[in-house]
Each structure stands twice: as C-alpha cells, then as structure tokens.
C-alpha cells in the first residue's frame, strides 16, 4: 500500500506533467476503503454513514420532544429550537433516508441485474465521498454554533440575510448543493448501469421490482435535483451577493422559492419512499412463498407515481395565496396520485393472501410498512382536498402524516431490508429474538409518538413552534408522544445490539450458506458474503425471479416441486483471474475540495482557491490516470460478466508490466 503512495509522489514519470502514477492496489485496511470503487463497499459506506447521521437526527428528535413534552418548555430556547428542528428535518431527509436508499441501491442493483459493478465505478465512489463531504459540511454549522434555522423547507424571505443574518442558512444552501451533486452523479451512473449492463436475457420486464423502483427514483433525482440546485443558487446569491430574487422590498415575489423548492420537494418524497417500496416488494414474496402479485402493475404504478409526482407540488402551497384556480387544479392532480400507490398496497396484500407466511423480523417490518404507509397515505388523501387541508396545514396533523409515510414507509422498509439482506452483505443473519424486540418497540413507540399528532393537529396545535401555552388541551398527548420517542430509542438500541451481538456470535464460524431464505431474485446466486467479483460466471436470465425458477418448477398438476437445491444452483464464489475496476484516489480528493469551496464562500474567498485546485486537479488526474492494470489483482472492468479468459492480449495496449 505504501508503495503505491510512494509511486504517486515520486514515480518514474514524476517529471512529466501528466505523471506516470499507478492506481492504488487495494487489499484491505482503511486505504482500501478510501480508494475503493467496488459498489458493495460503497454501499456499506453509505449505509454506515446514514446510520451515523440517523443517530444525530434522532438526538435532534429527542431534544424536540423533550422541549415539547410540557407547555412552556425550557429545555431549549426558541432560537436553538429552530435550529434543532431544521437540522432534524434536513438530516433525516438528506443524510439518512436518501443515502440509506443509496446504500441498498449501490449494493444490490448490480447484483440484481447480473453485473459485476456499475457503469462508472469511480463516479460511484465520488458520489459517496461528495455526500459525506456535504453531510459533514452541514453539520459543521453546529460546531460554529450557527446551524440553519429556517426549517428544512427554508422559505424565503425568512431565510434571506435580513431575517437570518447568521451563517446558518449559508451552511444549508451550500451543504445541500454539495449533497445534490452526489445524488445527481449517482442517478446518471445507475441509469446507465440499468440500461446498459444487464445480464444476457434480462429484459427490462424481467428485472426485480426493487431494481425498477430504484430506476424510477434515479429518474426522479435526475430531473428534480437541478430544480433545487437552482433554488439554492438563487438563495445563495441573494444572501451572499445581494441579488434580489426573493427580496419583496425590491419588488420580487418570494413565492418563487416555494415553487422551485416544491417542484423538487414533491418528487423528493417519492424518492424517499419508492426504494422501500422496492424492498418490501422483494421481502413479501420471499416470505409468502409466492411471486409478487401483479408484477406489471407494480412496475407501471411505480412509473406512474414517478410521472404524476411532477404535477402535484403546489399542494404544499394551498394557503400561500396562489388563487382558487391553481388550488383546484392541484387538488385534482393530488387526488389522482393516490391511485397508483393504492395499487401497490393492494398488490402486497394480495401477494400475502394464500401464501405460506414466515413472520420473521424482515417480514414483520415489511408488513409494518404496508400498514403504516396506508395510514400515512390516508391522511395524505385528506390533505389533497384543499378545503380540509386549509385547516390541517401548518398543524401537527401534517407532521403526523409525513412521519407515518417517511418513518412508517421508508424507514421501516430499510429495516426490513437490513434483516433480509444482512446475510448477503456480511455473511451472517441478524438475531431473530432481538429483531422482534427491535420491531415491536419501534412500531409501538412510533405509533405512540406520531399517532396522537393527528389529534393534536386537528385540535389546533401549530407546527414549527418551540412551545405552547397551557390550557389548550395539548398537554396530555404531547407528553405521551415524548414517551413514545423513548420506546423508539429502545427499539433502535435493540437493532444496534443485534448488529454487534450477531457479528460477535458469527466470529470464527463459517459464513451463512447460500440462499438462507429460499429467495427469488438474482443477487442470491452468489455466496454469502458476496465475493468481490460478484458472480463466478455470466448469468443467463430467462424469466423474472430467475433464481427461484432454477430451484423450483411446477409439475403437470400445477404443484410447485423442487428442481434443484440452492447449493446446486448457487455459485461457489471461487472464480479466479476476474478483472475488476481498479481503485482510485481521485474521488475522495475531489470530494474534499468541495467543502473548502464552501468555507471559502462563507468566510474568506481565498479558501476557495485550494478547494478549486483540488477539484480541477482531481478531474484532470482522473481523466488521465491509467486504466485498470490488466495484470494486477484488479484489471480491466468488464461490467457485465464477460469471461475474462476470452480477452485477447491485444487489448492491454496501454502499459506493459515489468
């Protein structure tokens, strides 16, 4: 490892402007993780980082609930409260749910389409490091004591310099722009991967539902992230360069911010929940021993949600004065979008109906998603009607709604995914007893906290307030809700304990045999944990649920009969000489330059200079760095599982090996 670093600085070609430097060698240790371009490691990095930010966001939630447990609370002052609830929202949305989805997508998508990696492995690494840079930059605001305080939605002109004079909203604008770059790059990468790197025979309509949902999410990201980028640029220019986009004193209309934010913001909520819908669509069929009911409907409803989600954004603005015609139009469009989501709920239930249900932890969480999201969806339908929304908006009823869909929908789905795919990623299962404690504590605590908020909201408790006066009837349910948070916290601690204890129990034992769940989709072809080269041989796909159909078939009477055991069908994982994309230093270096530019914009423009140099230099180094070493442990990447033995020697034209 150190020899590669030495080569970088004093290699044979150091005198040449474009240098003769080598790619890092990989092989374990922290340097391996920092330079990795392996989609599986990147997935794990995303997951671990998202869990870390989940802890931070959870602490922020705890502080919110402690402050609101009693009327006239004194736990935090109003100013700090604004920062806490803003950062809670920003952290949970951008630094937990989105990257957690990216974790699952990165790890599983190439495996589910039978590929060796994504289309652009270095860009993939770059996405992670830029996300981390953005998340750390945002949270630096806490260190300087000036966190964003305008809500996660950052309405102008409140977030302009007049009403938010500190640096808080600058951290918001710049931090989210950095994180947005990560999402955009990742979206482009995964779209090309799904289109171009599927195994032979895998048509789009033979892909697993999870892959489809991720694909729809990438399209949503591709088109939505530029919109919030525009909004954040305009906010940044208003705050730092005196522009007048949102300044009513100069005649501007601050509503421009709301439109731009919510044109992004509404597709964003589907970005948040569709990955979990995909996870649930894998878990439920597996533990019902039935194929997903209505595969085409599941795919088309996902596409429909992605498509319709663009036409509903102003339902977040029903009371902002856009006028009755606009309000009516968006009421109609919002009512329509409940339909494809309802299709999914019904299809999941139909999948379970008549199936042989195994109610393990993964399945419990998946059914939790179906039930909790239904509740959140129903409250959502009540919001779609603008007359009722006019009463509900800006109350705790809305807070209840979005926590039911995001926590109950997206987050519980991720936990289902943890329990389901943990053996695939780490080679051992998570414990079932602790898993059930994890589930029940979380779901009970979650309903304790957010269920009463429906009542509080309809009784008139306003949202985004740091405290409330006694005598309005809010006391009981607020205290109850705060107790619920502790129950959730215990549930999360069960998960953490489960992770640690399961790892400890598995130490020294052989890894989990392949296909621990008798599953259906292609990622289970490989042994556990997934070997670095994914599959031993090219997957030839002839149907949906290809893995299942290799093991099971139906006889003349229509009965399902065993055709082969998992051991016979699965790969052994001991293929050698497989060429993989080489690691690279440049993603992490490039990503590190971005927060420097951010700090420069905040404090001193000179700091932008090293940041810009790091970014530009990395781009050039990246473009001109040598392609994969064909003779090293990592070679020329052939992302879709070509037989490496067939590669003609003439391909290795670039460098010879001494």
């Amino acid at each position, binding site marked *: 490892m150190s020899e590669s670093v030495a080569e970088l600085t004093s290699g044979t070609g150091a005198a040449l402007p474009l240098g003769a430097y080598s790619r890092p060698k990989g092989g374990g240790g922290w340097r391996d993780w920092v330079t990795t371009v392996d989609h599986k490691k990147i997935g794990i990095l995303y997951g671990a980082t998202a869990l870390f930010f989940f802890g931070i966001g959870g602490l922020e939630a705890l502080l919110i609930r402690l402050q609101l447990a009693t009327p006239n609370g004194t736990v935090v002052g109003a100013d700090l409260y604004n920062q806490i609830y803003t950062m809670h929202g920003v952290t949970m949305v951008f630094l937990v749910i989105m990257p957690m989805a990216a974790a699952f997508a990165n790890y599983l998508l190439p495996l589910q389409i039978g590929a060796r990696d994504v289309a652009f492995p270095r860009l993939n690494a770059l996405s992670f490091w830029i996300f981390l840079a953005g998340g750390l930059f945002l949270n630096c605001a806490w260190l300087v004591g000036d966190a964003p305080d305008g809500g996660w939605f950052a309405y102008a002109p409140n977030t302009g310099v007049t009403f938010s004079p500190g640096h808080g909203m600058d951290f918001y604008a710049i931090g989210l722009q950095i994180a947005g770059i990560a999402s955009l790059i990742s979206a482009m990468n995964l779209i090309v991967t799904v289109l171009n790197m599927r195994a032979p025979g895998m048509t789009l309509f033979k892909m697993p539902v999870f892959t489809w949902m991720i694909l729809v999410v990438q399209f949503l990201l591709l088109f939505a992230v530029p919109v919030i980028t525009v909004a954040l640029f305009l906010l940044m220019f208003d705050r730092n360069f005196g522009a007048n986009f949102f300044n009513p004193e100069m005649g501007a209309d601050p509503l421009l911010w709301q439109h731009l934010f919510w044109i992004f913001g509404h597709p964003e909520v589907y970005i948040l929940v569709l990955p979990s819908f995909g996870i649930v669509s894998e878990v439920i069929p597996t533990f019902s021993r039935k194929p997903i009911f209505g595969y085409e409907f599941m795919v088309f409803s996902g596409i429909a949600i992605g498509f319709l989600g663009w036409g509903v954004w102003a339902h977040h603005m029903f009371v902002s004065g856009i006028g009755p015609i606009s309000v009516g139009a968006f009421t109609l469009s919002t009512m329509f979008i409940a339909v494809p989501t309802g299709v999914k709920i019904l299809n999941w239930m139909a999948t379970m109906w008549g199936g042989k249900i195994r109610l393990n932890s993964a399945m419990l969480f998946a059914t939790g998603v179906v039930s909790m999201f239904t509740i959140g969806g129903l409250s959502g339908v009540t919001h779609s009607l603008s007359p009722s929304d006019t009463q509900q908006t800006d109350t705790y009823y809305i807070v209840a709604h979005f926590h039911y869909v995001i926590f109950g929908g997206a987050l519980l789905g991720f936990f289902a995914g943890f329990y389901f795919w943990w053996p695939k990623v780490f080679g051992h299962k998570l414990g079932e007893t602790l898993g059930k404690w994890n589930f029940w504590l979380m779901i009970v605590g979650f309903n304790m906290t957010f269920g009463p908020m429906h009542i509080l909201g309809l009784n008139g408790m306003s949202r985004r307030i740091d405290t409330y006066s006694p005598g309005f009837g809010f006391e009981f349910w607020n205290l109850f809700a705060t107790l619920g948070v502790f129950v959730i916290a215990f549930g999360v601690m069960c998960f953490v304990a489960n992770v640690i204890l399961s790892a400890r129990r598995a130490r020294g034992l052989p890894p989990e045999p392949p296909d621990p769940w008798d599953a259906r989709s292609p990622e289970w072809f490989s042994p556990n944990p997934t070997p670095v080269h994914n599959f031993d041989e090219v997957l030839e796909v002839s149907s949906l649920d290809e893995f299942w159909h290799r093991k099971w078939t139906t006889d003349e009477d229509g009965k399902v009969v065993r055709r082969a055991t998992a051991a016979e069908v699965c790969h052994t994982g001991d293929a050698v000489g497989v060429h993989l994309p080489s690691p690279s230093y440049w993603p992490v270096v490039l990503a590190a330059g971005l927060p420097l530019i951010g700090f420069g914009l905040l404090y001193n423009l000179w700091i932008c200079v090293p940041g810009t140099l790091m970014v530009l230099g990395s781009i050039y180094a990246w473009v001109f760095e040598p392609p994969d070493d064909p003779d090293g442990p990592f070679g020329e990447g052939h992302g879709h599982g070509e037989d490496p033995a067939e590669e*003609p020697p003439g391909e290795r034209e670039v460098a010879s090996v001494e």
Partner: protein
Amino acid sequence: MNTDTADATHIKHEHPSDAKYVQIALLLAAITAAEVATYFVDVGPILIPALMVMMVVKFFYVAAWFMHLKFDSVVFTRFFVTGLILATAVYCIALTVFEFWSKG
C-alpha cells in the same frame, strides 16, 4: 472483445457529409437573420408565434443533425425529449400560477 466487427446490435451509423453540415449551418443562419429582422420590421401579432416556430426549427436542426440524434439510437432522443417536455410542462405550469401569461 470484438472491437472491429459490427454485430447485429450495432447501430448503423450514417454520417452526413461536411457539405451537408455547412448546408444546415446556412439554413440556421438564414433563420437567425429572419429572427433578427423581426426586431427591425413590425410583423404585428404573429411576432411571438413566429419567433417560437423559428426557435423550435433551429433547435430541431441542431439536435437532429449536429447532435446526431436523427442517426443515433432512439434512446438518446427519448432522454433528451423527456427532459425537455418535463421542464417545459413543469415550468409553464409554474408560470401559469404566477399569472405570467396575462401579467407578463
């Protein structure tokens, strides 16, 4: 890796000749001249429709010929057109909510 043989999945690449490209460029120049002429000559109420039509025609020729969409896989066209239509629809709706068409 057969870098030389074109197999069945390979898209047949026609390339317009340089002369053709110059022709397209002259067409674009002529349309631009017509557009600029509207600044000097009063054409009445057809001004904005005419400008829109000329803009779309120029857009089409650059995209179809210079960006090679006419000869390439339809997948590229789909991506680009999806982005275009989505942007146009979403932002036109936003402008409508701002009453842009009536109040400018």
